[in-house]
């Protein structure tokens, strides 16, 4: 089974801290994504990557950056955490090419609270 693992289920950080959210997948997927999930807003795409060292902005990239130094790992970085970044963060991965890329596999989410 494909496994997408996020390093923390719950995280509490202080305003202004630099925060790293880590995601690792074990199925050699090319595509990796970071989404943010808020009640009443659904999931919104922050950043995605289709290859090592490649990254593209999604719909809400402001205040975030990403790093993909290895194929299996995709990190989301909050340079200076703010309270409006309190949210659930979901990582996902998928293969390139159809129809395989039509199924995204998700991690279990990191609930981040910024105080």
């Amino acid at each position, binding site marked *: 089974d494909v496994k997408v693992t996020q390093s923390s289920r719950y995280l509490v950080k202080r305003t202004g801290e630099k925060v790293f959210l880590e995601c690792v997948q074990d199925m050699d997927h*090319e*595509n990796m*994504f970071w*989404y943010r999930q808020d009640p*009443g*807003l*659904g*999931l*919104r*795409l922050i950043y*995605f*990557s*289709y290859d090592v060292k490649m990254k*593209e902005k*999604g719909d809400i990239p402001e205040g975030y950056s990403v790093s993909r130094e290895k194929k299996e790992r995709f990190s989301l970085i909050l340079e200076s955490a703010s309270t409006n970044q309190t949210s*659930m963060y*979901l990582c*996902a991965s*998928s*293969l*390139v*090419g*159809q*129809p395989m*890329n*039509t*199924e*995204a596999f*998700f991690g*279990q*989410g990191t609930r981040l609270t910024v105080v």
Partner: protein
Amino acid sequence: AQTVTQSQPEMSVQEAETVTLSCTYDTSESNYYLFWYKQPPSRQMILVIRQEAYKQQNATENRFSVNFQKAAKSFSLKISDSQLGDTAMYFCAFMKNGGGGADGLTFGKGTHLIIQP
């Protein structure tokens, strides 16, 4: 850009009943995929069903089926013989064809479905 709209924030039905969740979308793409994802309280997102836009036949997966109306840009999910384990958030999602899927999914805001015993 595309948008996905789920107009029912919450629904509640009795166990064994049939329930239909609504989804509409807007896109200028002609070739795309549509999905329903389920997120139970465990937070694990699970793919329920997918539909290729070029296929006229509606997708089915056991108790789950869709009603895909391409001209109306409508994509509803029907759950038959609902079970307590169907209680979850359900998200409708869109993905355009091409680009290797790297653009990701566009999600609706979700419908919280509660199955009552």
